[in-house]
């Protein structure tokens, strides 16, 4: 027995000496990026330069954390690493990045190059949020916010909490993009962030719309809200119906969507059923809402009709202006009528009839009506 143990230890030691190149750095010597971001510069016809922006934490004394930015300009996304190491004094440890920011220009160019690099790397954080920003990415990453080590930490919270209003979904994580980008009949929308000026700070001003990996446009918040409502997995949102400054209702609801698809003589018909269930936040409309069933039913019908109208407007924009399927309707049809048949679902959805049916239900009305 003793003999065996000695043998085992000897062999283990031997294997470790032959095969191990142990990492030796301590945390302070590691560069831990808070975000990895991309910008692009088009030089001439067939030449582009990527601007890869690494924002890494600096662990200083007294538990103070700041961050610094390194910009690497190279011809491919992964070549950015070699340029980065020329400028940095640390070994980079990825896996804890909070957000990944693409500039609008890069998103329009097509984010496939970056997604491919991110997908191949097993240590990347799959739950980091993807964001599209207006203008230069660098300006947003270098924007400082008091109390936060970097703007990336701030933006992570912005995206994570966005789903409580405006019906933002929580499908903006890297893993969600992986499962959508090349999947048949699926599409991507990402939050669109703007930095207007230093005083106003960051703001989500809409959603970026994608056709496969290329950004095709940006919907401002008013329409974005309704498109979010129509998408699968949407969060909560506040809808106001206003007749005059003093007569209005605020309705805070959660949406649930169901899509069905029919095919009639080569034309697809999509039915989107949206069930809204929510509370009346403020009621300046009819004081009998709590007492009278009829008033409540009337209001529910009224809300549903108004929301339906808004939806139809946004659908018109989608079908006529963008001619793209941002609602993943093609996915439902593909599941029913077969995949890999060479159908362009964007075209199908743009030329199909989309019927929206909204049902609004009032659940609670708060603690009282003043």
């Amino acid at each position, binding site marked *: 027995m003793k003999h065996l143990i000695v043998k085992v230890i000897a062999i283990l030691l031997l294997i470790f000496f032959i095969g191990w190149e142990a990492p030796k750095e301590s945390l302070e010597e590691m560069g831990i990026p808070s975000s990895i971001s991309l910008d692009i510069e088009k030089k001439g016809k067939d030449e582009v330069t990527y601007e890869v922006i690494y924002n890494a934490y600096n662990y200083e004394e007294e538990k103070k954390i700041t961050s610094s930015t390194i910009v690497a300009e190279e011809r491919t996304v992964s070549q950015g690493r070699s340029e980065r190491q020329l400028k940095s004094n640390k070994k980079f440890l990825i896996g804890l990045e909070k957000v990944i920011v693409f500039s609008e220009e890069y998103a329009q160019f097509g984010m496939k190059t970056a997604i491919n690099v991110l997908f191949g790397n097993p240590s990347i954080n799959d739950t980091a949020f993807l964001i599209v920003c207006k203008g230069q990415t660098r300006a947003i990453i270098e924007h400082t916010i008091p109390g936060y080590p970097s703007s990336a930490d701030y933006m992570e919270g912005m995206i994570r909490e966005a789903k409580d209003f405006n019906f933002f979904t929580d499908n903006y994580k890297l893993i969600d993009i992986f499962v959508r980008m090349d999947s048949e009949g699926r599409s991507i929308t990402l939050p669109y962030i703007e930095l207007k000026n230093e005083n106003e700070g960051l703001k989500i001003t809409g959603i970026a719309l994608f056709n496969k990996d290329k950004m095709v446009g940006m919907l401002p918040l008013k329409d974005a809200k309704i498109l979010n409502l129509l998408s699968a997995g949407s969060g909560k949102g506040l809808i106001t119906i206003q007749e005059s400054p003093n007569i209005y209702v605020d309705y805070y609801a959660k949406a649930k969507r169901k899509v069905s698809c029919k095919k009639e003589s080569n034309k697809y018909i999509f039915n989107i059923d949206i069930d809204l269930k929510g509370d009346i936040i403020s009621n300046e409309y009819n004081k009998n809402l709590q007492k009278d069933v009829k008033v409540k039913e009337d209001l529910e019908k009224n809300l549903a009709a108004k929301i339906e109208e808004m939806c139809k407007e946004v659908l018109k924009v989608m079908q006529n202006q963008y001619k793209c399927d941002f609602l993943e309707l093609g996915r*439902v049809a593909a599941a029913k009528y077969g995949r890999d048949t060479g159908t362009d679902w964007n075209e199908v959805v743009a030329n199909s009839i989309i019927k929206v049916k909204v049902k609004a239900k009032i659940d609670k009305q708060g603690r009282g009506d003043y």
Partner: protein
Amino acid sequence: MNSEKSNHLKPYEITYIIIGSTVGLGILRLPNDLVKNAYEDAWIIAVISAIYPMYMALMGIYFCRIHPNENILVLSKKYMGNVIGTAANLLFLFHFIIVTAFIVSGFSNLYRVYAVEFLKPFAVVSLELFTAGLLVYMGLKTIARVNTLAFFVLLLTLLGGLAALRKGSYLNLLPLFRSSAADIAKGMKDAVFSYLGVETLFLIYPAAEKGRKIKKSVFVAVCIIMVIYTMVIELTIYYEGTDILLKSFWSFITVSESLNIPIINNFRFIFASLWMFIAIKGTANYFYACEFIVRDFFKGVKRENIICGVYIVLVCITMNMAEETVRSKYMNLLLPIIVIFNVIYVSVIAVIMTLKRKKVNEK
């Protein structure tokens, strides 16, 4: 230490050993292999391919009923003559060695991407085989216990994958039945590697507890394997969809990482350690089979020496095909041959056995 002679295998231990030899790390890329040909209908392949282990299981039960105390190595010499029998046994050994090399190189490739990129392939390969070798040295009973434990570890990791149910969509599983019979047949060729492993039954059934039928435990094992495989494939398609699934090399890992629990923000290393356990028990089972057959050839040589010899051979072979493209080349080449050989080897013995028994009865 060597207590296998006094301790017989319990029926449930046979079940777990068969599951343990069959279900290994291959499960992580099983969806890739099947979806490639049959898309949403991959589960049909998983169900149909279970014919192979079912056939092997039936044969094993038949052998055990007629010769409960003699393993297949003895039987092949008895019925096919000494020369042909020995040659066939040698090929049977070759099959175990090759499959061990496939398992270990698969383990090394996966772990060097996901967990231990700072280790050289040699370290991963030799350490894994070393651990397996230690288990082999401790005997069949220890291996049976490890397999029992590893089965529950496997269930735990699969439960983690169930978290994907919240995120995916049933739309990914539709439409059904769009692939042709030819696609399914092609897919079955790729599925075979995942269903290898029931062969260990032919070596271990003499060690089963006397007076107990192994029939039930073997069939339960094959059914559990089939259910696990079907579930893994359906879960992966449900979560990722067939288009995206093919983009990652080990698609089920993404599913098992979909589990999201506060405080623990990355499950990768927890899963990595659990999967390691599953991989090592599979290697140990195959290592044991190799050692068992070699011991049959060299009677009288000390077990330690046999294990060391087999260890060196395994490390050499694995190191020569550790790289992924080389590995898949050899797999495509050798696996169909291995399966055909196994079926012929077992069937021929069974046929001769039946014929001879008839003759004896007639006399």
